[in-house]
């Protein structure tokens, strides 16, 4: 049986990947990619890759730079510049070296010849072993990496700190100057702190409100109280009644 695919679906070209050859008693198995010229919605984008990028969705979970590279090779001998998969999704951008490659890729794709797909190496137990092995890098290197990162981070911090200082000197439209503790390190930190303060204030005022005057001083208060009690009792009674009815409907009172 040959695979019958529509020429396009929602503007996407379906590309069959042959993931299992047919045998005497089994049909071949195809995985379908959907490819389309990339269109960015960002206006005035300075990105000059747009016109040589192909957007592919329904990528196999084992799509990698090398497997996409061989895909490109198969489709019009195009050369892959970069493959940008979207994290946790089955789609990604395939950036080719030039605009012409891009058109060649899509033209070839339209022929819908099954593309061979080879697994990413390593697979299986080796892959999972390696994944765990690399958790233990050389400690010298790790130390170096951490040190470098921290240095860069310190510089970035300093920039942010400068922003805070700048903000400090601003007088806002109501004529207030923001006061920030010397330990605040970034604007984000200030935002969080502000939020926390607001919450605190809200809580405090709510607490204050709750602080009640003597509740059983006047007789009307006592009466009120009794009535609320009674009403509570009745409300409870009604609730209980409903509950029991519900239990009964669920055939609960069968002891045997």
């Amino acid at each position, binding site marked *: 049986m040959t695979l019958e695919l529509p020429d396009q679906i929602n503007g996407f070209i379906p590309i069959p990947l042959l993931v299992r050859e047919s045998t005497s008693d089994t049909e071949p198995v195809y995985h379908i990619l959907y490819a389309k010229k990339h269109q960015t919605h960002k206006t005035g984008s300075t990105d000059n890759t747009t016109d040589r990028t192909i957007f592919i969705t329904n990528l196999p979970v084992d799509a990698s730079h090398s497997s996409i590279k061989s895909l490109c090779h198969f489709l019009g001998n195009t050369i892959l510049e970069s493959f940008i998969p979207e994290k946790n999704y089955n*789609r990604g951008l395939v950036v080719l070296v030039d605009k012409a490659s891009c058109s060649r890729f899509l033209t070839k794709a339209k022929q819908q010849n099954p593309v061979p797909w080879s697994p990413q190496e390593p697979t299986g137990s080796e892959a999972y072993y390696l994944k765990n092995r690399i958790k233990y890098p050389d400690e010298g290197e790790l130390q170096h990496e951490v040190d470098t990162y921290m240095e860069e981070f310190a510089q970035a911090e300093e920039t942010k700190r400068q922003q805070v200082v700048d903000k400090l000197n601003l007088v806002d439209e109501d004529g207030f100057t923001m006061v920030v503790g010397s330990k605040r390190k970034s604007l984000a930190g200030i935002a969080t702190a502000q939020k926390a303060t607001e919450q605190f204030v809200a809580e405090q005022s709510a607490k204050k409100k709750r602080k009640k005057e003597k509740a059983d001083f006047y007789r009307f208060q006592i009466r009120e109280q009794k009535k609320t009690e009674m009403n509570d009792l009745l409300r*409870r009674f*009604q609730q209980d009644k409903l509950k*029991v009815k519900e239990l009964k409907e669920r055939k609960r009172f069968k*002891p045997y």
Partner: protein
Amino acid sequence: MAKRKSGDFSKKTNGSVGQAAAVETALPAKKQKVIASLADLSEEEDDFDSDEQDQDDDGEEDEDEDEEMDEDEEDDEEENGDASQTRSKSKQSISAQDVQIARETSELFKSNIFKMQIDELLTELALSEKYTQSLDKFLFQLNHVLQQSSSREQELSLGQAVKLVSSKKLAIPFPDPKPSPDIKYKFKIAHPESINIVGSYSIKTAVTQPEGVSIDLLITMPSSLFQEKDYVNYRYFHKRAFYVAYIASIIRADESLPVNVSYTLQHDDPLKPIIRLTFTDSKLAKRFNINVVFGVAPTTFESRKLSPERNCVRLQQDSTADNNSAKMLPPTPLYNSSLLSDTTYSSYLEFIHRACHQCEAFKDAAKLGRLWLRQRGFDSSPRHGGFGHFEWCLLMAALLQGGDRSGSSKVLMAGYSSYQLFKATLTFLANNDISGRLGLSFSTVKGQNTKLESLKQFVPQSPVPGTAAFLFDRDSKLNVFYKVSAWSYSLLRHEAAVTSDLLSDVVKDRFDAIFLEKLTVPQLRYDAFFTVTFPDFNNTIFSPLNRINYRSYQHFCVEKLAKVLKFGLGSRARQLVFTPLPSLYSTNASSSSWSISKRKGMFEESAIAVGVILDPQECEKLVTHGPPSEDASAAEKFRQFWGKKSELRRFQDGSIMESVVWKHSPTKPVVNSIVEYILYRHFKGSEIENTHDNILKYLPLQPRFPGHKERSVISTQLFQIKYQAFQQTANIIQNLSELPLRIRSVLPASSSLRYTSISEPCAYDFTSDDSIALGIIEFESSSRWPDDVNALEKTKTAFLLKIADQLRKQEKNMVVLVGVESADDFIPNGPDEVGFLQVQTAQGYSFKFRIRNDRDEQLYQRLNEEKHQQNTSVHLYQQKYSEVTTHNRVIHTLSLRYPYYSATARMLKVWFKSHLLASHVRDEVVELLALKPFLDSSPYVPPSSAVTAFYRVLAFLSTWDWREEPLVLDTEKASDASKDDVVATTLSAVEGTAMSLPFYQKISDAFSKHRTQDPALTLAPMFIGTKYDPTGTLWTQQIPRSEVGKIVAARTTALARAVDHMLTSGHVDQSLMFTSSLVDFDILIHIKNPSSAGDVDAGYKNLQLPRPVEDLDELVEKSVNIGLEFYKDLAKKYQDTLILFYSGSPDDKTCEEQIIAGLWKREILQPQKFKVNHNFSTIPTKSNVVELNKDAIIEEIARIGGDLVVKIDV
């Protein structure tokens, strides 16, 4: 204001313990009046206020104010009902009558809902009138037949009597010993003196029962049948037997009666055959059967001579002895009581009738008591404890006349509600020991009181059956409780105490546990459970005297067994329970009856089931302490009992005592060894079989540990060793000096460090499920921590490197590693990388530490906001860094407090794992579920067996309606010492009845709120509230929301129900319990886990001790669990395609062949329009839509699985 309201309201509905008690004792006198006045209410609503005034005694309010109040009331209602619609509705439904009922029940019953449930239950139990009419018609007909029978008075010799009866093809059901052929006395035929309906049907307390209701029809034999001295030497019983045959012949002769006639024994008493009538009509037969019982006028014999301490059966050589020497003969209380009870029908019927008349709620309370007893396996037949509906009614009737020492103050008041009668009766049973020195004596004579008094003069010197507990009738000299044995009386008090405590629980509704749950499933009820086959019948043991004092050989064996087990187990056993074997246990009325053409039925049981409720602190002790050596006679008795096993030992405190020392076994509780020995020594020829399931075989033992054969089944020794190793490491880390910041604490955060990992830990072992245990290093707070998550994590890594550096310098024998891992597996969408410190201690234990500090949570919170996710990162942070240490502390404390908890939790984990659910039910959730039988043990006391506890958890899971109810666990209460004060106020060891109301309220409120936020159950189907997690969803929450939780929860319930069904039906197949059916899955990926160390049990090939790991490559190879890694990878990659379930073996790595099972997500199975964001593999169909490309997905899985995948079944 809001707070106060709820407090007040709770008092109203529930009352505190003290209050409730006060209400109950103070009310009676006042109560009648209250009801009366409340009744007025229903006529005129306005009176309501003045009533309240009466009650409150403040007398401040006057008429004017009443008016004011009415106005207020209206305002109030306007406020309450927002829409006018609801207002009118509420006005309609809250009638004055409701007000009355609501107020009344809040005082007379535990709470409104309790009363309503009682009402519903009683309705459910009521006999259908449709059938009682047919029954009444029949009874009328039967009465007519008996009255009309030609009754020419006749005197017959034994020979004539036998001949007459056998001519009608009947046998005389003579009890043993049969009358000897040379007896002189005559048998008589005479018209019955009277025919009456007695028993529960007559007082209208009969309830529907699955096996049908037995109606007692009393035939009072004329006194003229008997002579004054007929009470001795079975003469009465022989004459009675003839009369029974005579009546049976009349009934059988009348063909118009639609019944089958057979003989049966009244309450298994071999002296008292009765006639059992079963209906030929199947509809009636299902519902009723009739017992024709036989009595005699109370004046027939001199009751004084049948008092329990008297002898009425002269053994052969004394048969001519006169009354005086009779006093010297051994008492025959069972015989005497058996006879006396035939003389008391009319007086007791009248006594109970009077009680019903005097006390309106008596009948309802009788029904409640009846059901309560039944659910606990009690009834009037001695095989089931000898305490049933009749004994309950008589006790209540007696307690209405007094019940204290002086007899002046009454335990039950006429004005009590059914609930109050029920509760007070139970409390009386629990609080008063009427088993010997004191007994309860009563009289059926009007105006006579009931009192607790010494009945020593009636109790024989050495205990004989019939004198275990005393409800003594002063007039007839009958001990009403003569059928109650010592063990059943003790069990009864135990159950009464537990239920009293449940009734005093002001926080949780315990209705189900008290009335609806059946407590007789042995696997759930007992901690140890055996079947004992009696030695063959033996004339030398079962001597003539024994034949009088015991009902049967079986009765004799049980009593003897009870005696030796009680002595031998001592404080280890709280209760011993003897029940007919499940296969023979049948309440089906026809099972014990026999044809009227035969003298005797054939149902001597040759075996009995023994259930033991153990004391958790005592039962696993290795030494049975005897008396000190100075006490010669006691020591001799002890030596006699234990034989060679007993030896003199000196103890640490210097005392020298006789004692017996036992051995621990990894598979057998100490109690089992003791019972086996006792039977071997004292019950020659008996056989014992441990019928409680040995599920411990499903729990892997650590075979690598030397000396594992002498550890207790519940030993946590190996866990302790690892825990200590952790603490040592923690101390070393904490005391490192050259760090820029101080370490506040180093805390354990791993299942093996709270004694709940499936495998027991062992040094250098990487095959266990928690071999590298996690710990958290908490640094003190400092402003110098960076303000950015990634920088923060990097800083932590820097710290870890410093710690590692110092550790290496300081601890030469410690292997120290620092690593970083992608946070993807750990906190998805969190920081990029997380560092860790891994150490292997000198003893060979591995720990993995991560760092936390005060700022973390805030930064993770910010991460949520930046990435617009719903609290996922911060939630995961809490799970993995902060709350996990609290959880660890709580569980660790509790596993020390409850010695059986650890094994239970581990077994439960195995269960979840065997059913492929472990991948979706967090360890913490399983650990909390396993706490249920310990922290909230109702209706039992906390288990002293891991197997029992395991079953109880499953029984709970089978009934837990997680959609509607939260699980509330009072984790702190049980662990703090102030708990012991609470114990003092409860009557039993039941746990969980004294939860604090505000705590419970808080959790309930959180649950209601949670349900409104998660109506589709996509967040957290199961809600488990604890002190440290009042949100209830810390561990059960799904991140992100999905349908999976609901599927897993539903499957858990279904699987638990299957087990529960096995238990209640009595066919337990353990292997089935731990084998999951795979038919429900869409796809099965069979994998070969290369991390497996092979089956440890098979061939013991790995029994050599593990050795230290040499290099890093080998360490990774040994410690990684590739099967699990593969599952995790697939689960992540196919999160929108498949729901995957993973089963390893219990510890994942001992089993090579494993399965990853999957279900296609339901919502993607239909062909649908192409969308760019379909995150699952599709293929276009002809009609320009796409459908799931299953074949390609399976290929893909096979591709990435590589060498792991053996085959994939679809």
